[in-house]
């Protein structure tokens, strides 16, 4: 049993999470399970039969995590209808590395669209949309399995409740995903996050003391490097304390399909296409045009100017003379 526990440390985690005491020794795992005291199990609130069933399910799940994820080469949204029942009449295929913005007022149906994708809807949601993966009706595992999450979501509120340092936190996440070289991955994520963040932070900074920009940078680096989900869903990236262009480039480089709910002109123009949502349906699709991209240059200048002014405020400067910023 000692050998098994060394090779598969998660087995010990599993047993201790049921309150069992594991004493590695020469006994086989089989005889360990056979010799568990039924009264002790009753105290712990589990029957032997159920423990064995859970153990089998657990091992199966663990082996599935180490399996390579099915590659998502294309995600197709087949239109349903809007709130008044008018057909959307679209078929939209998204590819890895694409950035698609989703725009529309509150309540227009952006969340429903994102939920349809996450649920891999098959005409069974209020919009009647259908989602295909690699051109086919996908396997049910995309709906229910925690290993095969189709979408990783970066929400706008980013609070941490765990009392851990940035390094410990990322390591815990890496371990839960059973990556092969967690130490290396953790270092990579922290370095990447520091490149994205306006202000650097140490690995031993508690996650709860990270600034908004640092948290976003950490979570984007984490999502790019650690998450196996092929779709990254981003709910606006606030323009503070993070290099947004680098952040998007990082996710693009990792071959994610990026869906971004945003009304920020610069972010919107960084996208390849914009889905305009109206009355619960996809109203139209705007390709970012050449003319728009040209305007992006001047928008970025404007943005840099605002950032410089922001920095002045931060450092206690005045804004009496802003010529030449």
């Amino acid at each position, binding site marked *: 049993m000692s050998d098994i526990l060394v090779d598969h440390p998660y087995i010990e985690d599993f047993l201790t999470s049921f309150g069992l005491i594991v004493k590695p020794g020469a006994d086989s795992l089989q005889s360990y399970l056979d010799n568990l005291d039924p009264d002790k199990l009753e105290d712990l609130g589990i029957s032997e039969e159920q423990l064995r069933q859970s153990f089998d399910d657990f091992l199966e799940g663990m082996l599935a995590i180490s399996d390579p994820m099915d590659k998502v080469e294309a995600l197709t949204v087949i239109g349903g209808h809007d709130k008044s029942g008018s057909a959307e009449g679209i078929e939209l295929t998204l590819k890895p590395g694409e950035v698609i913005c989703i725009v529309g007022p509150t309540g227009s149906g952006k969340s429903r669209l994102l939920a349809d994708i996450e649920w891999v809807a098959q005409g069974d949601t209020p919009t009647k949309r259908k989602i295909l993966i690699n051109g086919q009706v996908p396997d049910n595992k995309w709906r229910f399995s925690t290993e095969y999450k189709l979408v990783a979501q970066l929400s706008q509120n980013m609070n941490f409740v765990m009392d851990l340092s940035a390094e410990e936190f990322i390591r815990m996440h890496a371990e*839960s995903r059973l990556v092969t070289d967690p130490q290396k991955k953790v270092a990579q994520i922290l370095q990447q996050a520091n490149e994205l963040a306006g202000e650097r932070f140490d690995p031993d900074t508690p996650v709860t003391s990270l600034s908004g920009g640092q948290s976003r940078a950490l979570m984007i680096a984490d999502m790019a490097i650690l998450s196996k989900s092929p779709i990254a869903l981003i709910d606006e990236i606030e323009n503070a304390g993070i290099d947004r262009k680098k952040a998007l480039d990082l996710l693009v480089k990792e071959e994610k399909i990026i869906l971004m709910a945003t009304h920020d002109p610069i972010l919107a123009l960084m996208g390849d296409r914009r889905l305009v949502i109206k009355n619960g349906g996809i109203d139209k699709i705007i390709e970012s045009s050449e003319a728009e991209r040209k305007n992006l240059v001047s928008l970025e200048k404007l943005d840099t100017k605002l950032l410089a002014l922001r920095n002045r405020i931060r450092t206690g400067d005045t804004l009496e003379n802003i010529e030449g910023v």
Partner: protein
Amino acid sequence: MRFLTISGPPSSGKTSVILRVIEALQARGKKIGVVKFDCLLTDDDKLYAKKGVLVQKGLSGALCPDHYFVSNIESCVTWGHENGCEYLISESAGLCNRCSPHIKEITAVCVIDNLSGIGTPKKIGPMLKSADIVIITKGDIVSQAEREVFASRVKQVNPGAIIMNVNGITGQGAFELTSLFEEASDIETLKGKELRFSMPAALCSYCLGETRIGEEHQTGNIRKMDL
């Protein structure tokens, strides 16, 4: 009548999630009943009544809440059936982590929230470990990484369950959860059914109202700590 037992630690968001599911079920034209179990006081029955569902509330008072649950649930199911409910939901808080209202062959749901801390899943007994569906709430307040770590801890103690993130405030995930409810156990009565796991026993002098501390006042099922 489709019947489900929903349980979870206090304030994990059970009522909010159920309310969102009720809205989705009502949109499908279903008649719903809810039985709310609590200890001292609850106003949740008013929230349910406002949604136009049939509601019963059971307050256990000075009795152990889960023992109270199991002694009443059969008649509640009969009540739901006689009143023509197509869905009956029982909601009870797991106040002691060793207890669980889940019944064999009846769809069992546990609601637990992201804010409760990553050590919590392993601290909860059969209520979580034997549930068929585990709903994780309050996901909007924490980061994706934290959601994933928390879900992996839940998965560790109940690897066979369907684990879903549902937001009781925005309703995100409630529609999807409702489609699982549509496959819940279809029954007319609980006659002959059994709990999934035994409940903790007491039967000592303190069960009978003893308040004095000291060996001489302790009789019945007593267990001592190994100090």
